[in-house]
């Protein structure tokens, strides 16, 4: 990754380190937008894929449009220091509730302190959007002015063959300390694509991303997943929606409490966040200002978008990023 911003480290109230990278607006101060943008990544990934495609990256698109951009890493990502697999100050012992309660709280507070703004725009991809859905609906977060949720479902449709294969292997979680995505992805990146193609297709439309970018992301942007996180995702499929780790709070049910403007984006060929699940979120969210859009060939886009290519696809900078910026501009 060639793009680098100013790195900041902050500490959550439960003593985890988080990394936030700052990319200021590329327009002069008079054209600066009303609110800064906080951007959060997906499950098993860190912030780096927002910088893929360099000058055509999502970060650059926002900067060029006049936004002050803050890319955050959730806990357990390597830039904030190694997380111990078995031993260490911290191990992979966290769940998604920690992201919702602690990490988002710290990141929002930090960005508002640094910028002096009272509210911010939030863009979350996949898990990054799901945790904000949960925070807005359950914790009544009031410092988010506008929310863009890219491929962020709160339920599953029936599992695809590949995902079901992984699901059936869930018993293995008992025998491993962490889901070793990082090492596996780095190793796979040196193998021919045929070895891992069926599984990566669940995450990206292979026709819509450069192979070099895909390999780069596998080496530099995929991270381990904690067992508790993974169990919460399994609950998502088994219980029919996103729940707190102890199963007592239905974050999906609480979507009705959300009132901020929401832009919900789906990719037609996305196998993880099927458009049917994004429609479900759209209908449950309580906001009066809500927009649903599916990026598909029939809607005039170059292809049927998959999960990651909504952010890092070949021409996402021409098709997806401008739509997000246009939506934000109308509210900034």
């Amino acid at each position, binding site marked *: 990754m060639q793009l680098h911003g100013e790195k900041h480290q902050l500490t959550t109230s439960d003593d985890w380190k988080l990394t936030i990278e700052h990319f200021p607006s590329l327009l002069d101060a008079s054209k600066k937008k009303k609110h800064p943008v906080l951007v959060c990544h997906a499950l098993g990934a860190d912030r780096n894929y927002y910088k893929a495609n360099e000058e055509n990256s999502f970060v650059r698109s926002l900067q060029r449009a006049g936004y002050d951009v803050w890319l955050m890493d959730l806990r357990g990502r390597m830039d904030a220091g190694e997380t111990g697999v078995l031993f260490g100050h911290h191990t992979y012992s966290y769940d998604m509730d920690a992201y919702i309660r602690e990490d988002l709280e710290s990141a929002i507070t930090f960005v508002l302190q640094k910028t002096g703004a009272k509210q911010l725009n939030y863009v979350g991809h996949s898990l990054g959007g799901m945790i904000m859905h949960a925070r807005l609906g359950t914790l009544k977060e009031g410092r988010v002015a506008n929310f863009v949720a890219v491929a962020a479902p709160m339920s599953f*449709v*029936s599992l695809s063959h590949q995902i079901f294969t992984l699901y059936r292997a869930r018993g293995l979680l008992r025998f491993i300390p962490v889901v070793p995505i990082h090492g596996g992805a780095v190793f796979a990146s040196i193998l021919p694509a045929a070895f891992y193609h069926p599984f990566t297709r*669940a995450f990206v439309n292979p026709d819509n991303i450069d192979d070099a970018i895909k390999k780069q992301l596998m080496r530099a942007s995929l991270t381990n997943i904690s067992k508790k996180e993974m169990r919460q995702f399994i609950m998502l499929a088994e219980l029919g929606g996103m729940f707190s780790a102890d199963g007592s709070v239905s974050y999906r049910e609480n979507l009705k409490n959300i009132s901020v403007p929401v832009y919900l984006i789906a990719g*037609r*060929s996305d196998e993880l966040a*099927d*458009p049917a699940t994004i*429609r479900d979120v759209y209908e449950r969210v309580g906001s009066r200002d809500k927009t*649903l859009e*599916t990026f598909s060939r029939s809607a005039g886009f170059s292809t049927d978008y998959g999960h990651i290519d909504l952010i890092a696809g070949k021409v996402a900078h021409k098709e997806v990023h401008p739509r997000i910026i246009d939506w934000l501009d109308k509210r900034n």
Partner: protein
Amino acid sequence: MKKRQIGFILSLAMAGISCQSISTTNYTSTQVEVKAQKRTVTENCRNFLIEAGDNTYKVSLFPRTYNTLAGPEYSLLLVSPVLFEDEVLYNSGSASIIPWFNSRGVSVWLVRIPPQTPLEKFGRVVLPEINVAIRKNSKDQNWVLGGISLGGQAIAHYLNDAPKHELTTQMRVHSAFFLGTGFDYEYPGSFGRIYAKENMAPAEFQKRFAPGIRVEHIAARGNLFAGGKPVWSDALNGVNLKDKGVRVFFLAGKVDDVAPSESIYKFYVKTAGSEVKNIPGVLFKQPGRMNRHAINFDHGALIASPELTADVLPEIFNWLDF
């Protein structure tokens, strides 16, 4: 050799006799279509005109072309796909649904929905009357209904009253499958809203939604509106297939933008009564690479394509095995 030729001639004669002996109670005419020069699936097809209500409806029987003692013991009833000309089901220029079933021992009845016919009325009022006539002229006890594309809405409306219709039609519907049938379009960017708003020519429709289908098989847009209103309706709220005694299989092409998962999945959940439990007899599947199919199916590929006959129809056929 001579014996086989004589046998073949006798079987043709028997077919003719059976055609002539069909009850004419509800038929205004019968017709045998034979194309001597060009062998097509229509050469064994028999067309009937059936009076139902104030109108006359064209129904075609495509007899099974393969017989086996252990073969399927049901007939399949399809209705027009509405968005496409009926010919796409038996002579698509690619692999077609009807001959595929015929060659596996299944007779197919094709009920043609006239242009500008509201699908709810057709399914609830007209189709039961047509099925009475069909049933009187078929020995098969078990039936499967197939909803293809938008025509599936008519099937859904019919099945909403399945137990009642079984009494009047004597047609025991064992199973139904819906191939690319959307059940509600009440969401932003839905096909129903796009199509109702945009004056889309067949070539434009083909390019955007069904690139594998010949333009001449795309129905004229005017066929889909009656009195300015679309022929389709919100079947999600108007139809309930739960506990109707009919097994149901919903198929939503992974990249189908006419009947995408978001226009089907909610109806599936309503039918199954649960999002998370596997309910016997109610199935939802997305034909696509994610399920080890050769392609991600768009709407056209679900209507007629080599991949349909290679990947999807065998799964339906196996599911229908009873």
